[in-house]
Every structure is written in C-alpha cells, then in structure tokens.
C-alpha cells in the first residue's frame, strides 16, 4: 500500500535520514526502532511532509509529493506525535471533530451562505466523533477541555482524532512514551482492537518499549544514525548483533 524509497533528510550538514526505504502493506503492523537520534521521528515527519525530504513516496502506485503537509491525510494516512498535539482550549469532542477528513462546507463562505447543509454535515461528523471518543474510552469526557486531561488521556484523545479519520494507514510516533505499565497495556489493547476491525489500518509504530512492539508487530525495522541496519521478525531482529551493538554499544576486549 505505502511504499517509501530512499528517503533522505538533511538538516544543514547533518544527514538525519539517509536513504531509508519502507513498504507498508494493508493491515500490516511494522515497528520502527533505533536509539535516540537515529532518525525515526524525522522519517515519519518526512513522510507526512513536515520536513523537506528527497526520495520517492507512493501510495497504491500514486506518487505523493514530499515536503507538503496534508498530502498523506488526504490519501488516508494519519499520524500521531511524540507528545500529543492537541488544542488545549477546545473540548475533546472539538479536537476529534477537526480530524474528520471531510472538508466540504467547512469554509468561511459556507458558514454564511450554506448554513443548512453545513449544520447537517456537522451532525454527521458529530456521530463519527462520538464513536471515536467511545473507542478511545473517552466517551464521557467529550465536553471537557483537552487541556484538563491527564497525560495518558491526551494520548488516547490524539488517537481518537485519528480514529475519526478512519485511516488506511497510521503512523504512530512513540505512542507509549510517558505512559505507565497499565496505560501502556491499555493502549496495546486499543490498537489491537482497532486492527481487528474490518477497516483497521496498517500501522507503522516508532517505539522504545519492547513489550509494546512484540505484542503488535509482525515485522521490525531498525535504524541507526539515519540508516537501516536490520529488519525482519522481532525475534530475529533482537538477535542481530548489529542491533545489540546499536542499543547497548559494543566492547572489544583485548586479550
């Protein structure tokens, strides 16, 4: 479904992502790991247009322009962020509503000239948003301000916003960062549940928590210093000496 080839990102003289390729098939869950600074987040930022990048990106064979935000959303690929990116002054429901990928009648002009159809559409979106909040176990908190939520709830609210978008693909940037053990397993449960739905999305998960990945991923890709150093099934990857080196460092013992 999603095919990224030879993605490169440079920040001045630093090569943050150096020719990383990725194939994400429908309904597949792929883990993306690597030590801090290995370019995982930058890779996702490159795919979603937040940073300029070179390389090719295709979705079902159609080329997607790199460096232009919003392209992926319009083609059904959504993302979350390392720290939840919500508008704290809006309610949970409003935050989720912004993620409904139906932009008809959401303009200034429509608010003046096409009120009736606009309100009708708004009610349809409202159903989707409430369903998404219920999915994220936030159904009862719909009218609370996002700014007042606990950290774990903010994570789930961000997930609800993508759920309302009914994506084909989902890019998750450290979804379990800052969550405790119980919250993490709750999140795993949520993602597993979503995957089992008929329209469940393919997922690319950047994560450090090993148990998180092992429960969800079929395949993993390991980055170090912007380049891919290993890929395969989780068990294979963890046994790979280069991966062990990258994570734990290597010691050469002079006899």
């Amino acid at each position, binding site marked *: 479904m999603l095919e990224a080839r030879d993605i490169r990102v440079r920040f001045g003289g630093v090569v943050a992502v150096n020719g990383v390729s990725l194939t994400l098939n429908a309904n597949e869950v792929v883990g993306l790991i690597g030590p801090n600074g290995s370019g995982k987040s930058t890779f996702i930022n490159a795919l*979603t*247009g*937040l940073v300029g990048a070179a390389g090719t990106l295709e979705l079902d064979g159609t080329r997607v322009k790199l460096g232009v*935000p*919003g392209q*992926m*959303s*319009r083609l059904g690929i*959504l*993302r979350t*962020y390392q720290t939840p*990116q*919500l*508008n704290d*002054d*809006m*309610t949970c*429901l*409003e*935050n989720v*509503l*912004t*993620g409904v*990928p139906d*932009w008809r*009648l*959401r*303009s*200034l002009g*429509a*608010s*003046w000239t096409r*009120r009736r159809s*606009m*309100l*009708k*559409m*708004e*009610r*349809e*979106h*409202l*159903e*989707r948003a*409430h*369903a998404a909040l*219920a*999915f994220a176990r936030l159904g009862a908190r*719909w*009218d609370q301000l996002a700014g007042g939520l606990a950290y774990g709830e903010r994570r789930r609210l961000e997930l609800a*916003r993508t759920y309302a*978008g*009914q994506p084909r693909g989902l890019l998750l940037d450290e979804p379990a960062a800052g969550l405790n053990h119980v919250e993490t397993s709750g999140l795993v449960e949520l993602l597993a*549940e979503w995957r089992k*739905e*008929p329209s469940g999305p393919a997922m690319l998960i950047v994560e450090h928590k090993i148990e998180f990945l092992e429960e969800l991923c079929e395949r993993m890709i390991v980055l170090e210093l912007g380049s891919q150093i290993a890929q395969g099934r989780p068990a294979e990857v963890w046994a790979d000496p280069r991966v062990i080196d990258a994570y734990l460092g290597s010691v050469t013992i002079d006899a």
Partner: protein
Amino acid sequence: MSVTDLLQRTRLRPGVPDGVPATPPLRGRQYPFLGLVVLVGLFAPAIMGGSDYDTGVLTTVIIHAVLTLGLFWCFSLGGLFTFATYGVYAAGAYTSIWAANHLGGFWSGLVAATLIGAVLGALITVLFARCSMVYFAIATMACGALLVILFREWTSFTGGFSGQADIKLPSLFGYQLDTYVKRYYLMFAVLALLLLLTIFFLRSPAARDLQLAKGNGPVAAVIGLHPKRAQSAAFIVGCAIQGIAGSLYAHNTSYISLEAFHIDIALLVLLMLLLGGVSSIYGPLIGAALLIYLPEYLRDIQKYSDLVYGVAVLVVVVAFPKGIAGVRGSIQKRINHA
C-alpha cells in the same frame, strides 16, 4: 467493537446523540446577546440624550465597535495582528466618498469601502505571509503609515490636510438620512449585521478549524486543513470590516480631513479589544462603549482622568486577562482555585 456497533448501542437518532446537547460550535449564547444589543441599540439615543452631541458620541461608539470587530477578526480569530487599522480605515473612508460621488450614492460607497478593505487585507497577507507575529505587526504598521502618506500626497482624491467637504449623505430607498439620529440607526444596523455574520462564523465548523490552524498550525496542515489560507481569510474579513468603518465615518460628517486617521486609532482599537475581551464576540462592543464613554464621564475630574484611565486599564489587564467579557470566567476560576 466497531463504529456501527457503537452507533447502534448508543442509539443515535439521525444526527443527534441521545442525551448529548447541541454540537460544539453551537454552544454559547450569542443570539440572546445579539438580541440584547439590538434592544439597547434601538433605545440608546433616547436613553443617552437626544442632542447632536450625545448622538455623536453614540455613533463614535458604533464606529469604534466596528473597527474593533475588524481587529477581532484579524487577531482573535485569525491570529494575525494588525496595526494597519488607521490606514485601512482611511482607505475605506476616501474610497467610499469617491465611489458615492462617481458611482451612485452611499451604498456603492459602502460596497467599495468593503472591497478596498478586503483588497488591502489580501495584499498584506500575501506580501507578509512569511513574517512571524511581531514582524507581521510591524509590517502592518508600516502599511498603515504608507497608506496615510499616500492619501496626504494624493490631494485630488482626498483633499489632504485641508480636507474634503464634498460628501454625500446616506439615503435609504430615496429617503435622505439627514439627521444624526437617522444615521445612527443606519450605522447601528450595519454593526448588528456584522455581528450576526460573525456569530454565523463562530457557530460553524470553520471557526473550529481556524482555532486549530491558529494554535497548532503544522498539526492542522498535516491533518489536511489549510491553516495559512484560513487565517488569511479571517484577516481579509477583518480588514474589510475596518473599511466599512471608514465608510460609515465618512458619510456621517460633511467634512473629513486626514487628521482623523492617526495611528492613535490603531492603539485605541487594540486597547478596546483588550479591555472588552480578546476571546469573546462581546469584547469589541464592550470595549468601544467603555473607552468612548469613560473619558466623557471623567471630564469632571479632568485633572485625574489620565490617572483613573491608566489604573482602570491596568486593573483589567492584570486581574481580568480575558477582558471585561471574561470577568465572570476569571472570577469563577479564582473561586475554583481558592
């Protein structure tokens, strides 16, 4: 549990979930507020006194409320600050006078002023699209100054500092609005219409998208919204409204000169928005009424008026950061914290 399961379980009627109040953009009591404003506005000339002077003060309130509503659109909604207020206001005024004389009366003047405001707003957003907050504000200030210089030199159009006296009175269906009170009602109707349009916008998904665009631009862009476009649109509407204020001002007097368009207006309008409440549609009206009437009432203690004025501004800014419109919320917050 799938979406359809959930929908069935919660038994949604088409559109309206059971036990869930109206949709988010439909919250608030803006329509009752508008009703109250209209009621007060209708009787204001009778309450505030019937002399030309009293009515003049009232119309000044209306004009400043319109100007501040323009800033509300630019800044509170669009997140783009403007100091070009006085230039756009002047452009609206002179364009309106010219169009009224050459194209057919006050109404074509009003339309022309709206358009020139919108065009200027569009130009500013296009030219300074890449400037960040503070630099954008300074750029708009420069635009205001440039416009005023242009009008000073272009004397065939504006009369410069010696002024312009060839101004058509507004008329409605051939009926000349030849007194200050009649013109007050015209201006008030325009203000009420602008408030209604603003409420329409606030009660729409577009306002919500704009809020995300303003506060979390890159996120909004990734979601698939067009943050810059939405912000520019609000800015353009704001400038158009300030153009309208210029037209209203021009046709209420028989003579205008450039002295009326000083940078002080941009500051005054900013103060009105801050005092009235940046984040509330009630703000512009409250701020304008307060800052026009306060000096009137302080005239008896003229010696201390600046002091009282300064202290009042400080108290509001420090104690009620959301302005007068947000006093209730601010007090509630303190009580909840205590």
